């Protein structure tokens, strides 16, 4: 059983400042082994992020006060039963319930604006795996999931109700079912293969969808230390995440397929080469991939998702692709261990209704992504560690111009923004270096302990969390991205027995 809660809000509060955010979670698991053939796990996870914001009026004699409470919660309950049957047959039954919901409570004077969103899934999956002989085995089974989605419920009262009436997106229930079969085998000495088919279906209101999802993976052993791999897979998705293109919010909406909103599908090809330098315990991997996606979800320009309960009519569907090259070098033994990874990638989108129908880069088209994790054992009890991460900035659509029009009743002028082509600008790159040293207790001791001392973000580079407009001295403005955490020294002590 494990539980945790952040405490930085309490620390900041003790210094007279305010950080109205914290999160906590609880994780429990019970493992049972009633027989030598049965293994049962019962698990529970729940967590919540809480943001409480209060702003008092400057005039302390007034009763004016604005409060905003924002909570995001996740909970999962699982039941897992593994059973070993005779004849090299294994079965796994997994039953689960998950719930994601958020609630926003804003109150100012007599105005109340409450927003709720909820998605609850009940599901089960049964898998049967059988080893036929030393050449091949198969896995088959079924899966079912019921999604109960309440995407957006808005409740208003007071003055604001005259501007925004209470409303709710129609709650929907969808049922997904699938059957799958996969076979894994060897052919001659050098070939390994895995081939499968999954047929998935979704039923929502009076609309029924089905999609075959074939997959094939092949591995060819070049020699004792090198291999080539290739794979193809097709996937279908019946639950869409509708998110802002410009701003990352945790309040993204989940929406099931409907008669108008079709399932998303994707086809992916990969090709890889792996090599092991056995004498040096070094593993190398080079992999390239290409993914083509159809009926991706987006929404029309100007759609207000935040306070909108009738957004299905605003949803649009388009296509996209992504491709890249991934390199990995890993060392798992010796005084120096760790890995260096690098990915070069590109992702694009195309919607007829957006960007004049022209293809544009996806928001998370982050061209370069690299990391280096290294550990060096100075002695048996002292080791050094470092982590360096680099990722290219994501994309966004800035305002690049403005123009003036008279206000509708001629009582002034308004500035109207003009935006750049969609996602045409790259945000600042993110990179940081962490270093640390571990001190282990003597191996002979009954209780093992370790001290871990280090510095996170050694050169104090901002990890961007948003975009601000700041004034320059000459009266113009500039875009910049603030960071939340800079250099943070840390110290931890762990004990195991």
């Amino acid at each position, binding site marked *: 059983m494990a539980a945790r809660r952040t405490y930085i809000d309490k*620390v*900041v509060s*003790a*210094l007279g400042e305010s950080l109205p955010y914290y999160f906590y979670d609880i994780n429990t698991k019970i493992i049972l082994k009633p027989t030598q053939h049965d293994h049962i796990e019962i698990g529970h996870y729940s967590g919540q992020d809480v943001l409480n914001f209060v702003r008092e009026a400057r005039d302390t004699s007034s*009763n004016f006060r604005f409060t905003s409470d924002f909570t995001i919660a996740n909970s999962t309950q699982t039941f897992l039963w593994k059973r070993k049957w005779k004849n090299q047959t294994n079965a796994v039954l997994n039953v689960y319930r998950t719930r994601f919901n958020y609630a926003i409570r804003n109150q100012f*004077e*007599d105005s109340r604006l409450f927003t709720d969103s909820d998605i609850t899934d009940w599901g089960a999956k049964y898998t049967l795996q059988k080893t036929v002989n030393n050449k091949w085995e198969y896995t088959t089974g079924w899966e079912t999931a019921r999604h109960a989605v309440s995407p957006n419920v808005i409740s208003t009262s007071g*003055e*604001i109700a*005259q501007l925004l009436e209470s409303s709710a997106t129609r709650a929907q229930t969808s049922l997904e079912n699938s059957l799958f079969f996969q076979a894994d085998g060897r052919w001659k000495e050098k070939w390994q293969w895995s081939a499968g088919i999954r047929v998935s279906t979704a039923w929502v209101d009076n609309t029924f969808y089905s999609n075959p999802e074939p997959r094939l993976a092949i591995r060819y052993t070049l020699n004792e230390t090198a291999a080539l791999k290739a794979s193809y897979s097709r996937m279908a998705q019946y639950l869409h995440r509708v998110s802002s*293109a*410009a*701003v990352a919010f945790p309040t993204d909406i989940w929406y099931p397929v409907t008669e108008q909103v079709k399932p998303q599908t994707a086809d992916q090809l990969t090709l890889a080469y792996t090599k092991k330098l056995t004498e040096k315990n070094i593993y190398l991997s080079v992999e390239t991939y290409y993914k083509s996606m159809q009926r991706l979800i987006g929404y029309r*320009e*100007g*759609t*207000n998702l*935040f*306070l909108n309960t009738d957004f299905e009519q605003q949803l649009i569907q388009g296509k996209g692709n992504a491709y890249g090259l991934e390199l990995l070098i890993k060392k798992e033994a010796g005084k120096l261990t760790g890995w260096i990874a690098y990915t070069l990638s590109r992702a694009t989108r195309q919607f007829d209704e957006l960007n004049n129908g022209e293809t544009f880069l996806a928001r998370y088209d982050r061209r370069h992504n690299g990391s280096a994790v290294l550990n060096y054992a100075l002695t048996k009890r002292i080791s050094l560690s470092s982590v360096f991460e680099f990722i290219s900035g994501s994309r*966004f659509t*800035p*305002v*690049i*111009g*403005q*123009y*003036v*029009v*008279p206000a*509708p*009743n*001629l*009582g*002034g*002028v308004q*500035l*109207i*923004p*003009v*935006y750049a*082509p969609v996602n045409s*600008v790259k945000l*600042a790159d993110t990179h940081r270096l962490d270093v640390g040293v571990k001190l282990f207790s003597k191996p002979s001791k009954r209780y093992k302990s370790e001290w871990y001392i280090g510095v996170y973000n050694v050169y*104090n580079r*901002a*990890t961007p969390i948003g*975009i601000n407009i700041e*004034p320059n001295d000459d*009266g*113009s*403005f*500039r*875009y*910049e*991205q603030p*960071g939340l*955490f*800079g*250099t*943070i020294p840390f110290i931890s002590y762990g004990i195991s027995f």
Partner: protein
Amino acid sequence: MLMGVVYLGCIPEPLPIENLPKLTPKLVVSSQVLPGVGLVVLVTRSIGALDAGENANPEELIAQIAITDATVVISNTTNRDTLLNLGNGFYGGITNLQESAIYELQIENNEFGKVNAFTTLLPFVGFEEISADIIYNEFDSLARIRYTFNDPPTENFYMINVQRYSATQQLTSLLNPRIYTKLMDDKEFNGQTYSETFNVLFQEFLPGDSIAVSLTNISQPYYNYVKLRNDSRFGFSEFASEPINFPTNVKGGLGWFTLHTPDIRLFELQEDQ
């Protein structure tokens, strides 16, 4: 405690965002029929995104962007008039506009070449009755507007605006002024007399404050444009919110060529008796 001190002491410098594309300047058109005066057209140029903000001086801004050397011509099937250059980007003078006629506006200057736009002069629809006073609730004193107008038996779209008005208005309040705007169509009262009472929300008014209330019969494309502007007001910031390319009926430029005639009434607010 140590963690808190370190956290507060090491907040990193923000990162700049570079390589922003620059908008090719475009010619911007706005127009308005002033009751009893005639048509006025404002011709300006677009500016860079970071060149001006809400704190800019409106007079200086207009002087910076006004196009003062354009030739502005308005025509229909029977007439063609060149508007007078009134200075500061304003052109006007024509008064004999015909209801329901389609007009073309052509603007030409050396910097931007030619742009043009088409629109129809919609029939004037004004208030039959209107009153404004102040009501009090537990927290605020609000302006309450009561009005009535006669809707013509055609498909119509309306815009009602309420704005605080002062003879000694601060110039800074003229840029992105706080205007309360209501939009509606006449599907539920087509060809009938329509009455409504509403409160101007999120602005506090005191006895003696002056407001301007206007009713305008507008075209559907312009209604859609203003609705788009209104809906985007829930965004946290236009600079970091959903990108919207606001529509325009100006071919080769930006803005709107409209021939709407507002009915503007001024009130000095008093408490409801």
